[in-house]
Every structure is written in C-alpha cells, then in structure tokens.
C-alpha cells in the first residue's frame, strides 16, 4: 500500500506530489528532502523512516521517485512499482529529466491517477493505460546544452521515440533488442577472476495490430551445464526466465518463443551466465606503474581490444571526438576517454602524476582500473535472433529492427 508518491528534482524542487490516502501530511516531502540532504555520500539508503512514515525511493534520470508507505509493505513491490512508473513516464514523455517531468506534469498526474487508486496499484500495462491517457506529451527541445541530465555515461544510440502513444498513426515498427551486461574482474596477473553476464531480450512494439510474433533463437542455445544441443559451438547460459505471456511450446524443440506483444516495451526473456564465457574478455590491460626520479608517479597503460578485427568498433565513454584524459582530484581518478576502438588493435597511454608525499607504499594504492563501454552488434554469450516472424503479415511498410548491444556493468582490472 502506497500512501503518497512524489517526484523531486535533485535540488529538492517538488515536481509531482500525489497523496492517495490522505493519512500523512504534505510536509512529508520536506521531511524526505531534509533527510536526503542531511546525509553525506553518493546516495542515501533506499529506505528511510521518520516516525511512522517510511520513505522508499529510487533514483532515475537524476530525480528522486519517492513513495511513502507502511512498514509491512513489500519493498520488492514498491521498488518495482517506482521503476515501472519511471519507465512509463519515459515511454510517454520520451526522456526522463527534470524538464520533461515539469513540462508533462498534467500527463503524469493523469498517469498516477490511473495507475494507483487509494494506494493500491491498479495496472501498469501500457496496453490498458493507452485507453485512459488523454493528454498529449510535450517534448522538450531535443538538443539543449542546458539539459545536461540527458547526457549519460553511455550514449544512447538506441534513442527512444518520443511519446510513442501520442502518434499512433505513424510508422509501424518493432524492435527486438538483445541487451547484455557484463561484469568482469581480471586479476593483477591477467587471470580472469570473475565473469558474469546478465542478458535480456526486450521487445518494443509500436505495431497497430499484431496478434502473434515468433522469435527464433540460435538452434544450439542450451541451458545449464549438462544440456548441449546442435553441432556448432554451443551457446550456453546458466539460467533463463521468461515473461509470463511467452508461450514455450516450440521452445524445447526449435528454440522459438511465441508471444503476443502488447504496445510499448516489455522484457520477454532474461538469462544469465556465470564464469564460463565462450570467448576471451574483450579488453586486456597491461599496466606498468613506477616512480620516476623526480618523485612522480608514472602509469603506463597498454590496452588491447581482443575483438575480431575489422568487424566491431567499440566505444568508451563517448563524449569528445578524440581521445582525452582528465584528472578528477575529487574522486582521485584519471579518466581516459576513447571514442572509438577497433578490434585487434592496441592503445597506449602514459600518465605522469605529481603526488605529494609519494612513497613506495603509495604504489600499492593505485588501481583498480574500471572500464565502461558499449559494444554494439555483439553479445558476449553469443545469443542471436535467428528470425522474427509476425502474424498476421503486416500490411503496408512495417519495420523490424533486431539490435544487439553489450554494456559493461562493471569491468574491473586489478593492478
């Protein structure tokens, strides 16, 4: 049960406030912001309480999405709800930022009104909601220097269409995205200490009428350690779970997922793989760290990209046209940005750092190196979409997109 929902900007401006049960006063917003600002650190704890008021919040798009609730309610439900709400707002308004929320406040109130009644979640399905939501989304100017909150770590080249519910008559499109997140730890001796991949298949459907859709995965896709299929190199994952609307009658024999996609975005399948990557990790680092005669710290980093040559290009922290490096004294880190990195090549960098009071022991303090990157057209597990069939056959021009991308969730190389 949720008694209030509010959205705050990072500076504490009230963007949206809705009280569903009228049980606690509207000063809750102030209390919450006081608590947030009183704490140091990068993010306050997810659950905070003030007397018998419990705040649960998530941060998305630089905003605080907060729900107040009772102590016995399920944190899983509330956090999932807040995430879902943020996703809905993003679907309707095109992006999540202080500005877009401010401009679309009427739409968000309307949304909240339909999604929650008397603190009980009614529905969050975009199929149902599209019948009720009447307000048109207002777009913020797409390119604005002031709108910095849109600039994320990783450039969104899979940019979302703005407010897709608003213009139904437009192009009919369907996107099937295979998104993987890697978390890798490579030891100082170059040994792979941990490699996890969390993957999902996401369907974004903007087709006016689509009764059934069939997604074929690799024939040799196998689950668990024992099961092996096909003759080629097996594509193996440890665990798989499906959305409840997916019918699996052809999955065992032909690796085909059947589903009736609803409008909007949904995660059809999630899978994970631990420790047993089919290929070598995409990046290796060869660091040399020493102290030069002038008491400076020398870091010589050689970074190698082990992807097949000429097939893939990779991005690190894209934001400038050329390589650049920057020292961030606050977080005591050097940020090296590489806009484009071709497979099979190698990059080197030499950093000289003036460190006051450098001792030989300080060398032990250097590290680890964290990489954040995005690899388009590649999945670490090798999962591929064999085909995508829609029925009934779509009249007129419809566009189908199958996209693969691998993100670094956490790619750490110890020194």
């Amino acid at each position: 049960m949720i008694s209030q929902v509010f959205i705050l900007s990072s500076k504490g401006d009230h963007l949206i406030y809705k009280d569903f049960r009228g049980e606690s006063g509207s000063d809750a917003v102030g209390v919450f912001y006081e608590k947030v600002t009183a704490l140091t650190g990068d993010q306050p704890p997810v659950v905070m309480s003030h007397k018998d008021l419990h705040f649960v919040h998530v941060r998305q798009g630089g905003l605080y999405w907060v729900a107040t609730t009772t102590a016995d309610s399920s944190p899983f439900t509330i956090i999932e709800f807040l995430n879902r709400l943020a996703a809905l707002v993003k679907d309707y308004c095109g992006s999540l930022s202080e500005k877009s929320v401010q401009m679309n406040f009427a739409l968000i109130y309307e949304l909240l009104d339909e999604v929650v009644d008397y603190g009980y979640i009614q529905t969050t399905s975009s199929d149902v909601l599209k019948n009720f939501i009447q307000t048109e989304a207002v777009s913020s100017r797409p390119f604005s220097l002031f709108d910095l909150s849109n600039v994320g770590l990783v450039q969104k080249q899979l940019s979302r269409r703005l407010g897709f519910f608003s213009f139904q008559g437009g192009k009919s499109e369907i996107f099937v995205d295979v998104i993987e997140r890697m978390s890798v730890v490579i030891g100082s001796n170059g040994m792979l200490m941990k490699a996890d991949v969390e993957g999902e298949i996401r369907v974004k459907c903007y087709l006016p009428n689509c009764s059934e859709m069939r997604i074929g995965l690799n024939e040799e896709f196998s689950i668990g350690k024992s099961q092996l299929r096909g003759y080629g190199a097996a594509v193996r994952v440890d665990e798989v779970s499906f959305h409840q609307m997916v019918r699996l009658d052809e999955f065992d024999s032909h690796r085909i997922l059947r589903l009736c996609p609803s409008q909007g975005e949904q995660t059809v399948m999630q899978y994970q793989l631990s420790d047993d990557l089919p290929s070598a990790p995409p990046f290796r680092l060869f660091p040399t760290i020493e102290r030069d005669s002038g008491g400076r710290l020398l870091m010589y980093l050689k970074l190698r990209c082990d992807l097949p040559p000429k097939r893939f290009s990779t991005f690190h922290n894209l934001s400038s046209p050329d390589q650049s490096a920057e020292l961030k004294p606050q977080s005591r880190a050097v940020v090296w940005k590489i806009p484009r990195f071709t497979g099979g090549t190698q990059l080197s960098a030499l950093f000289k750092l003036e460190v006051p009071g450098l001792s030989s022991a300080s060398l032990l303090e250097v590290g680890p190196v964290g990489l954040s990157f995005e690899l388009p057209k590649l999945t670490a597990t090798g999962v591929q979409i064999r085909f995508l069939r829609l029925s009934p056959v779509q009249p007129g021009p419809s566009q189908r997109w199958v996209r693969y991308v691998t993100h670094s969730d956490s790619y750490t190389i110890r020194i």
Partner: protein
Amino acid sequence: MIWGFFSLDGTGQINQVMYRTTHENSLLSSAGKLFPASNDWIFQQDNAPYHTARAMSQGVDMSGLFSEMVKACATVDVVQKKLVYVFLCSYAALNPELSLLVINTLRKDCQDPNPMVRSLALRNMTNLRLPSLVEYVEQPLTAGLRDRAACVRRVAVLGWAKLHNLQPSSEIDAAVVNELYSLLRDPDPVVMVNCLRALEEILKDEGGVAINKPITHHLLNRLKECDIWGQCEVLRVLQRYRPQSEDELFDILSLLDASLVSPHPPVMAATLSLFLSLCSGQPAVNLAALERVRGPLLAACGSGSREMRFTALCHIQLLLRSIPGLMGAHYKRFFCGYAEPAYIKQRKMQVLVELVNDENVAMLLDELKGYCTDVNTDTAQAAISAIGRIGRSYSDRCLEILTGLLGLKQDHITSAVVQTMRDLVWVCPQCSDTVCFALEGCEETLQDSQGRQALLWLLGVYGERVSSAPYTLEVFIDGVRSEASLGVKMELLTATMRLFLCRPAETQDMLGRLLHYCIEEETDMCVRDQALLYYRLLHCGIEETRKVLQGRRSDPSLGVLIGRPAEPVSQWARSFNTLEPLRQGSIETESASRGSPEHTTFDPKPNADLSDTLDCSHIEKVHSDSDGRCLDSSADILASSVAAPLSLSLFPALSPEEFERLWLQQRALHAEQEEAEEEDFVWMEECVRCPTIPCCSPQSLQAAMQLVNIQTLAFTPPQTLPWRVYLYTHTCLDDSPHSTLILGELLYTGEEPQKAEVNKGSADGEVGVEGTEDEQARQGTEATADGGQETVKVTLRQQPRDDKALKGFMSILTTVLHTLSSEKA
C-alpha cells in the same frame, strides 16, 4: 499569465519559478506601491486549470481559486476535467461548503455514457474525503458496483473502502459486504483483487477478509489471470489461510511452485513469504523453498536497478541466517562493481563475510583487499572490518593483509585497521603476537579519536609485549592538554594504569603527571572522576589495583566457536518481504563507533562482565528481545522451579587451562578411590532426557546457558558422537556467605544408557537427590520405551561441597536442557 506585470519585468521565460516570484515580489510590492491606501485591488488571472494545477503541483497555495475551479469542472474536455479534479481533491478539505457544489456535476458525470467519465467522476467523488458528502456518494457507488464497464467497478469497489475509512465508527453495511464478497467472482481480475483490498480495509476489526477453503482455491485458480501487482496482493492475503490437511497443503504448494521462481522479484518474494507461513510447521519444506528461490534472488541481485539489487541483497542476508551455505558457490556474484554506490558495496561485503569457506577464502580476501583502498572512506573501512571478521576463522591470512595495509600510512586506513585488530584480538587472543608487532609506529598516522582509542586499549592490555608502549603513551600524555576527545582521555588513563601494573619503572613518572593533570586541571567531570578513582585505588595497594584493572583480554562468551549458528526460519520469516531487513544494516554499521570492547554487549546475550551476579528469579529482566521466546519461557520455568533462592555467577572467571587442570586432577583422584573421602568437593552424575540437545546448535546452547549464568567452555560440533560440552559456574545460596564452584560435563554417546543412575561420589550419600532420582528413574523408563538413546549424561563436580546448591544447580540445568530440547522438537 500576469500580463500587466510582465511588461514591467520585460519578457522573460514563463516558467513556474518566474510565475511564483513574480507573484511574490513584483505583484505584491507593486500593488503596495500603486494602492498604498487600501487593500482594495483585484488580481486577475486567466484561470486556465492547466496553469492553476501546475502552480499547485509546485507547492504554491492556490486555495483561493477554489470557487473558480468548481465552475471549471463542468466541461466536456476530459483533460481539463481531470486537472480540475486533481485541484479539487487537494483543496476540498479547506472548502467543504463549496465542494458541495461539485457533487452535482460529479453525480451527473456518473450517468455519462462514456465509462471513462463515469469512473473518473466516481473516483474523484470518493477522493474528496469529506464526511459531509458521504450521503451523496453512496447511491452512485452502489450503482457503480453493478456497472457494465470493469473500470467503473474497480473504482466503485475501492470507493467503499474509502467511504468506510472516512467514518470508521459507522456501522458496516452487511449488504455491501455481501456484494463485495460476490464480486470476488467478477470476471475482471483487477475487480477481484480490489474486492480483497476493500474487504481487508472494511473488515479490519474482524481481522480482514474471511479466507476459507473455497475462497482460497478460487483465488489460487485465478492467480494466473492477475498481473504481478494483483498476484502479490492475493499471495499476501492468503498468508492467513491454514490448510486443513497435508494433502491440501501440498496441492497448494505445487500450484505456487511456478510463481516461486517467477522472474518478477515482487511475485517471487510474496510467494516465498506465503510458503514460509503455510509451512511454518515443516522446516524441511521451508528449506527446500529457500533453495528454490536462490536463482531468482541472485538474478534480482544483478538487476539493472540499484535499489532492487539492494533489496535482494538485504533479503539474501535473511536467508543466510538459516542456511549459511546457501550462496557459498555463488560468492562471485557478490563482488562489488566499481560504479556501485557505497551502500550496496557494504551490504555485499557483509554477505561475502558470511560466505567464506576453505575453498574461496583466498579469492575472497584478494577481492576484499582491493576494496580497502577504495576512494570512499566508508567503503574502505567496511572492507577492512570485513577482513577482520574473516580473520576470526582465518587469522593468519587476514593479519597479513591488515599488517600490509598499515604500510600505506593513510590515516583512515590505519585507524580502521587498528580498530579491526582490537576487535580481532578481543575474540581471538592467539592473534595478539602479530598485532603487537604490527602496532609499532602506527601512532604517527592515526588522526581520529576512534583509532587512537583502539590503539590505547591495545597498548594497555598488551603493554608488556609492545616494547615501545611507554614511549607512545608518553607522546599522548604530553599532548593531553590539547586533546579534545573525551573517549581518548578516558582510554589513556586506563591504558597508562594498566601499563603501570606491568612496567612500573618506565611508566611511574608519566602516570603521575597524567593523574596530576587530570585531577588538577581537567575540566571534564568524567575524566576527573576516573582519575580520582585510580588515584585512590593506587592508595589501596598494588594488588587491589591489579584486581580491578586487569580485566579480560578476550570475549569470555566465545570458546572454540567459529561462524554463526543456523537460525530457524521462523526467526525471520515474519520480516521477510517487509521494509525491516532494508533498515537493519544502517544500525549495524553505526555500532562500529564505540570504545573498548569490554564495554560493548555482543549480540543479544547479556554480557558476562556486566551481569556478574544474576539472581535466577529475576532473569526476566535480563534477556533481550531477539533471543526470543525460548528464553522467555525458560526463564519462567526457572523462576518457578527454583525454590531456594540460588544465584549463579560467572565471577571469578575460570580459564580453560585451569578448568582442565581441576577437572583432570580430580577426575583422576575420583577414579582412583571410588569413595572419595575428600571434604571439599563432590562428584555427581546424572542422566537427563533431552532428545535433541546434541543436534542443537552450540550457539543457542551457549546463549541459553549464559542467560542463567552458566559459562560453557568447550564444545564438540553438533551431530558428532560422542558429543560433549564442558561448563562451569559459581553458585551462591542466599543464606550461606561462601560460594562454590561447579564444573560440569554433558556427554551424549548415542548409546543406550546402562541404567538411569545417580552416582554420587561423596561420602555421605543421604543428602537428598531422592526426588531427582525418582524422576530420573521414570525418565529412564520412558526413554527406553521410546527406543531411548536420548539421554545426556551430566557429570558435575562441586567445590567446596554444598549439596543444596548442587541440587538447585542441577534443577536449573535440567530445566534449561528440557526447554532447549522442546524448543528444538
């Protein structure tokens, strides 16, 4: 907007902030200038609901516009209607009379052919929250329950709950309740779930909606139709159901199996919660369910949303309390990502500490070592103390890492390391040599008071082994004038006193200076009193001082134990899937800021140091909450069973070596001459029937024993044969001034007892345990009837002899064992 003032300001952006500041600054001040004489001026606004509602959502008080908004709601534009309703619901409470005007429009809308308009009107009618309007709302709500459109029925059902809560004292209309029950069979799943929610609220006083067998099975069958929110709600309500037979229970469980491994964490958590409450009597099923959710929980730990990760982590910590090995093979999933926020990293480290075992300890420590130099000092300190926790089981490796960290000479790292070493030494005295060696020279980098307190404590307790201890203390004493921290001063006093006891020649002079300063110049009363106390203590003589100051060097409650006990699932089942587990951690980390280890109470156990003499009849006061019901009941039983006021005490403490010496020496003597003639001690053997004691975890046994002030010294691990426990205590009868020492052994061989016999090794056997004898005989026969290898042999040794006390002790011990075994069974 405010056009008149706009031209004065120049054309600026029209945004809320401007709008507001224009109102506040320009409008009011200009009005004051233009119409200085009177307040009689009119503010004209365009009254577009869009503007008003927006300004309201920014927190501007727009209640003055209420009457205009009332008029605006009679529009055909649905978007405008919705906005007006948002406004009206926010301010209705301030204008009850004007709100009456809205009701007519709303009631008219309830007849609208468009179901969306109907549901909108109905929802907002009930959202006005005005008790005076109830009479106008009831009729449309009743009609709403029978509406053709599901969306109207959804609103109407919840509307009754809102209405009821507006007037909680009013009678519950039985017709409405019946209608709501029948709507549980509504074809729309959301209406069904809303009915459950509404009935829960309306029938709150009767304990919520009635969950009987037909309703349960109806709900379970329709579970698949609901979306995840509905499923969670249904699963939560079903927790109250008690299946009538085991077959039914397993039918339900197999229906629920699919949702137990649902990819949606809310459904998975709600299902597990339901499992735990349905099978509360079947621990094996519970454990199997926990194994089953491992996959989904781990997946949630890798979720894209940080908050979801955090929630899953907190719940995994709960699960680990019952199955410590549950995640052992998956420890790598808990390695921290470099971009994760500090609060997730700290939780992950807490989990990692739990997962450590012989195979992964090297990897784990390597990983944790990497976190120790984290930029975030909190994370670094958490990593260091995590290594310290692992050090309780793998002390050598951990000490090596900790000592290495001291070499970095970073003040926050050094401080954390010294504190961690102090805590480690307190539980593992065998580490003290390495620690003492490592301490040399680290005082130069220590800055904060916590770290210095820890260092001082270590220097005080192990001063004789750290060669430079006096010099370090001297530096502190020379700087005591500029010392700001009270804690450091107090610790300095104690440490200097302790050092004086073992190295008087080097310390005497500086102790004198310190005491002089503290007594003569110090302004803080606590420090002054402490100094005066020590000063007077020194007057009493060196032996007295030694007695007071040479306290324990290690935690007396920890014997040979390592790791945590496996708690029964019921301990935490109630807090599963609530906000509780997410909040606990913050408290745990706070406890890191503390002084010397003697002053902390570990866990819920009453600290032996603090409760030196504890009268059994007053035990209720001492036990703390989380150890829970078993202690409560045992305390009650104890209070009633002990007739003679007998107190047990742990003081003076007995070292394991001393125990061994006494035990073996007398044992040998005892074996030599069956009829021991010695006057000052007595042997006694008894059999106590307590079937499950040997399976009981050493920790719970220890905790229970400590509660009645019996100290357990050593254990064999549970489930091993023969199973032994050694324990001791001091007894003191109220009427006799002197106390006696009792040593004891519990032995369970797993074999048939020869005969329930009471074997007293004392000369005069008439001192009565007749009652016990009878009881034992009876128990013995019962035991044999049960197949009877379930008795634990208790051997006790008392010195000096005091049969009354021994008998009292025996009855306490028996009660504790019985309580524990009934708890287990």
